[in-house]
């Protein structure tokens, strides 16, 4: 499938890619001639280039060189290969992306939902593919990985789902924020049925996500050792705020978790699960969503944070549109510029300064085709 139908938008970008690919092969005189003829294309191009993901580093251009960068791959939702190779092609594309980054990121965060239905075949396949990532991988768990065996195999493969570490002066906390209150015992559901229900975003039988009291206590202890001036970055699969309850774009105990982060000056939460360009700020905490490699979710009908600039509606005729991966540039301040590497589109950067200024500065490009 795939290439038979291409949207005008997709074709347009392909032509531009071909144009810039061609530019590389030209000598200087030929380049000037072509550039003169194509001034319009260049002017309209913005940040786009065939290798935009690695070549464009606006932070450097503006003299606000980041302290360090890390990349991410998230929400790959793998089935076993014999059933579905589409999502496998997508994760491989993302692995190629992050392996092609120059300079290499300090590490690659995997944002959760490695598997689609928590099956051993899916998780092991994912673990195998992620071994080919050159940079160290930091794992996070998603609900699709968890609810078949309640995380047993995931823990065997990747270790504890919640942990913390320090890197170049930043304190990182990784949470398992996809706990759900037991909805299965009383209904006498099999593990498979339980997993299937959780896998349905609009399936209202399941409970809402939560970090849970036990893990909040662990987090409290962990943060007690950290100086309040140290930048904190939290990885959470669920958004750690309340966006849209019916789809679990939601964390039930978000307020309690935010309260634990309140004493810190600079806090960033990087989350998966929402498969879309998503930005928010609540007091001292900045939030960035991650893209999925498998499919984009539509924006929820209500509750969208005001600071979010929606990504344009994905083109269903292009397998990769609306999907992607990305990079986080951790600035000297300890805050994060988040680069969305949208496949087949211009990349979009949501800057710490945009969120910190409440949207007054450095706004990302406007949405042309918002949700219906």
């Amino acid at each position, binding site marked *: *499938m795939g290439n038979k139908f291409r949207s005008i938008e997709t074709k347009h970008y392909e032509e531009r890619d071909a144009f810039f690919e061609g530019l590389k092969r030209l000598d200087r005189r030929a380049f000037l001639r072509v550039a003169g003829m194509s001034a319009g294309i260049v002017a309209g191009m913005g940040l786009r280039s065939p290798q935009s993901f690695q070549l464009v580093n606006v932070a450097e251009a503006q003299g606000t060189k980041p302290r360090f960068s890390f990349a991410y791959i998230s929400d790959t939702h793998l089935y076993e290969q014999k059933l579905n190779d589409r999502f496998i092609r997508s994760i491989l594309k993302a692995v190629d992306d992050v392996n092609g980054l120059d300079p290499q990121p300090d590490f690659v965060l995997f944002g959760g939902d490695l598997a689609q239905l928590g099956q051993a075949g899916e998780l092991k396949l994912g673990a195998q593919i992620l071994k080919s990532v050159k940079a160290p991988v930091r794992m996070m768990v998603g609900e699709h990985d968890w609810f078949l065996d309640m995380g047993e195999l995931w823990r065997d493969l990747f270790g504890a789902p919640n942990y913390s570490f320090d890197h170049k002066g930043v304190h990182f906390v990784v949470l398992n924020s996809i706990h759900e209150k037991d909805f299965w015992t009383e209904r006498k559901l099999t593990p498979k049925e339980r997993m299937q229900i959780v896998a*349905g975003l609009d399936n209202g039988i399941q409970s809402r996500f939560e970090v849970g009291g036990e893990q909040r206590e662990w987090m409290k202890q962990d943060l007690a050792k950290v100086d309040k001036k140290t930048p904190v970055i939290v990885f959470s699969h669920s958004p750690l705020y309340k966006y849209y309850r019916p789809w679990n774009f939601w964390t039930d105990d978000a307020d309690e978790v935010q309260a634990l982060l309140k004493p810190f000056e600079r806090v960033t939460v990087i989350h998966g699960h929402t498969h879309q360009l998503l930005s928010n700020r609540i007091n001292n905490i900045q939030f960035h969503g991650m893209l999925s490699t498998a499919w984009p979710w*539509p924006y*929820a009908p209500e509750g969208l944070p005001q600071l979010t600039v929606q990504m344009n509606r994905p083109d269903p005729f292009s397998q990769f549109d609306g999907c992607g991966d990305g990079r986080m540039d951790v600035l000297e301040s300890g805050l994060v510029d988040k680069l969305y590497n949208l496949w087949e589109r211009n990349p979009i950067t949501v800057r710490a300064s945009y969120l910190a200024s409440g949207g007054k500065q450095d706004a990302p490009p406007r949405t042309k085709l918002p949700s*219906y």
Partner: protein
Amino acid sequence: MTYRMKLWVGAGALLSFAGGVALATSPAPRPESLQATELPRHKVPVSKDGNLVVGMCDGETSLEVKGVKEGQSLTREQAARVSAELMETWLKKNPDANWDPAPPPGVAQGQKQAPQQKNPPMGTQKPATGGDIREGGVTAESGGKEVRKEAGVNIQDGHSYGAFTQRDEAVWAASTQQFVDEGHRVFHDAAAVGGTIAVSCDMCHPDASNTHPETYPKYQVQLGRVALLRDMINWCIENPVRGKPLADGDPRLRAMEAYIYAQRKGTKLEYGKK
């Protein structure tokens, strides 16, 4: 639907019109029950003079026609007189039944009407939605009082919807919901829709979001032609879902359309929207 069922439904429709009776739409009886029970017969009394006795369609009222012997036929005038007399008796027995008088012969619609009561100002009374179901089933008077209240109100009537009960409407709503629920099932089940790679519609469209049925028909740039919602459903089935497109009449396609439209209740129709 079998021929016999058609007959039964036809008869039901006739009944509900006769006398403006508000009939409860009970599920159509199975055709076997029609065969099993003999239909009631109207046994008219025998005249001791050997006169003709005519029975009325209510199964109770009858009239002895003096001067016409059993076996003889009535002239047209005699028949008209007999039916008028029977009707009068019936109306006396059922004062609350609302029987629309037959229009005088030869007066077609649009022609000059027999003198009628002047129309009262409109808008003072709402049309009846039908009364509650009476104990003992439908009688000649069921719903009659409600209809009488409307007599003379300047409001259009004579169509079937005005004569149904809340129960009817509940049955309709439930049938519609069942249709929508079936669509929900198919929409959330990769196998049901014929997918081969375990991708179901809800995986990209939770609650049918971003299916925007209200924007069709529209020129679908990627297809190079004007598309309906069902064209896009089939496109998705063929491509991301990797199944075979469904035929226009396929119950799964119809159910999915029902589900998708139901999710967008209240959204403004804007065909052609980009």
